[in-house]
């Protein structure tokens, strides 16, 4: 049985279609991250799942029950908002217990549940305070507590960490992961932060222009991106995208004098002659001696930046840029020609016209 099923969800505002046919099915206990830049429709989709917005077409099924037209309160979901959305006039305890209060759970039972949840989130000492007396991180915990206490079928998170500072964000990320492992809950989580997506998700749906570009595990999203968009969205520094022409199995990067032979499996798919984009992750590049016979590219080093754990080298091939992440001790000099070796398995070839992976 799937915990959540979306069937051809479409949303139109007048002539503008913000969701263009979303289909997905989520097993119980999965942590799905909807990843995309702002305006891709991920928050709209979350609101449709929550019942806060109505889809123009399509059906939402929660636990094998169609919830189209069902009020949010009757969908057996809980939601954590970006702004936390705590009730400012209520104490932390009442905020957490409000959902139970509205569902007419007896006071004693409610207090019990609130305490249990507060303990789990380590906010027992804050129960009597008002939200205005809490820090951002504490508010976030209360907002999560409010969702947890109800024990719903699905948890929805709308960019819950984006109002926190970097350090706290990392802490809460780990905390969320711990909670998910501990409770085994089903989660749909919206973010534009690829690190959050990679670390938290069991599956990621990368969204673009109201459609799912790729739905896969973090590993697959990173290592086998289905499109050029997915490839460039995930990873930091982003994947190098080099325009190239393939002829007779030899790839010529535009602006480069030499070409290199494509691995056999790709050569077959590339066919005779076509324009392609060659994607190479910065970390799959390494230094090679000049004239090295193995798979590699010659480039002119422009800028060398030491970030701490790595050395980021930006070079040019004609008018194209190539970024490499190297071990910090590597010896590279700006202004010099340099050959970079490429791990053949780490080549991503995309059709230039369609952006699809070959």
């Amino acid at each position, binding site marked *: 049985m799937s915990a959540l099923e979306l069937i051809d969800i479409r949303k139109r505002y007048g002539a503008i279609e913000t969701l263009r046919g979303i289909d997905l099915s989520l097993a119980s206990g999965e942590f799905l991250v909807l990843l995309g830049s702002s305006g891709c429709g991920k928050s709209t989709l979350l609101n449709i799942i929550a019942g806060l917005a109505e889809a123009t077409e399509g059906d939402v099924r929660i636990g094998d029950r169609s919830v189209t037209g069902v009020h949010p*309160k009757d969908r057996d979901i809980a939601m954590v*908002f970006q702004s936390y*959305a705590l009730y400012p006039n209520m104490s932390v305890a009442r905020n957490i217990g409000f959902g139970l209060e509205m569902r007419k759970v007896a006071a004693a039972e409610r207090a019990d549940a609130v305490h249990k949840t507060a303990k789990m989130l380590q906010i027992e000492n804050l129960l009597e305070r008002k939200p205005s007396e809490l820090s951002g991180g504490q508010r976030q915990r209360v907002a999560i507590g409010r969702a947890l206490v109800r024990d719903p079928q699905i948890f929805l998170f709308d960019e819950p960490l984006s109002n926190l500072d970097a350090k706290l964000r990392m802490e809460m990320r780990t905390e969320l992961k711990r909670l998910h492992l501990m409770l085994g809950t089903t989660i749909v989580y919206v973010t534009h932060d690829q690190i959050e997506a990679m670390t938290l998700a069991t599956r990621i749906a990368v969204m673009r222009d109201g459609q799912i570009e790729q739905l896969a595990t973090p590993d697959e999203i990173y290592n086998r991106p289905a499109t050029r968009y997915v490839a460039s969205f995930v990873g930091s520094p982003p994947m190098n995208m080099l325009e190239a022409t393939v002829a007779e199995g030899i790839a010529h990067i535009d602006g480069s004098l030499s070409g290199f032979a494509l691995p056999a499996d790709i050569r077959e798919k590339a066919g005779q002659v076509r324009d392609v984009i060659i994607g190479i992750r910065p970390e799959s590049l390494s230094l090679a001696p000049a004239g090295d016979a193995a798979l590699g590219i010659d480039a002119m080093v422009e800028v060398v930046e030491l970030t701490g754990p790595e050395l980021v080298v930006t070079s040019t091939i004609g008018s194209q840029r190539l970024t490499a992440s190297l071990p910090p001790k590597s010896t590279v000099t700006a202004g010099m020609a340099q050959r970079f070796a490429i791990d053949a398995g780490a080549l991503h070839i995309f059709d230039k016209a369609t952006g699809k992976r070959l």
Partner: protein
Amino acid sequence: MTSNWITTRAWLLMLPLLIVMIAIIGWPLVDTVRLSFTDAKLVGTAGSFVGLDNYVKMLSGSNFQRTLVTTTLFAVLSVAAEMVIGVLAALLLNQQFYGRSVLRALMILPWALPTVVNATLWRLIYNPEYGALNAALTQIGLLDTYRSWLGEPGTALTALIVADCWKNFPLVALIALAALQAVPRDITAASMVDGAGAWARFRFVIMPYLAGPLMVALVLRTIEAFKVFDLIWVMTRGGPANSTRTLSILVYQEAFSFQRAGSGASLALIVTLLITILAVAYAALIRKSAGAS
């Protein structure tokens, strides 16, 4: 720049206003206090000192007590109705629907009209011979014969309260609407997910945002209703049989109709004191609720 100079400059800048206020409010007030201790008439004698006689006479008189009851009744009922209708109107106008902004603008109209226009309009509606209310009620069969709504002691005050409500509920609605728009969308969404129905959402989630602004509206409207004059003067002049006579009308009658400046002044000061007590009590309430949130 020293803080001394800043203080001096502030006083200097306020000086013109202070002079005007002393001239048109301060001095008349002092003179009214003086008058209230005399038996002066409006014209003729300057009057002689009579001590607290005027106050004793006014406070113990049955006119004052009856009028105080009428005024309180008018203020409490009309303000209560305005608050309820105003909040309901604001909740409606806060919904998404086609033509909302036009309706919002239209709603302000009754409040924007001068009271005299409003009063004249309602006098026409209540007219015993060709009034719209009589016509409407007889046509739908609720009434057999035309009635004189403002001419019968049993209905006159109610008719006035309705007119006052119509004029003043937009102010409450406007204040409530502004407060409603300050309620974060996420908070209402969160309460929906939490399972709060419409009433619980209003009571527990929206009301806390409305309470402060509504308190201000309540203060403003109560004080205004308590000293109401023009609406009643145009519509009934305090009649019939003094059934709609409020304190301000009584003050006017005493000082100008009966030309008793001394006792009129004492009555005016009593009314001022009552309103001041109201204002101070409300100010304390507002401070308390502001401190609580």
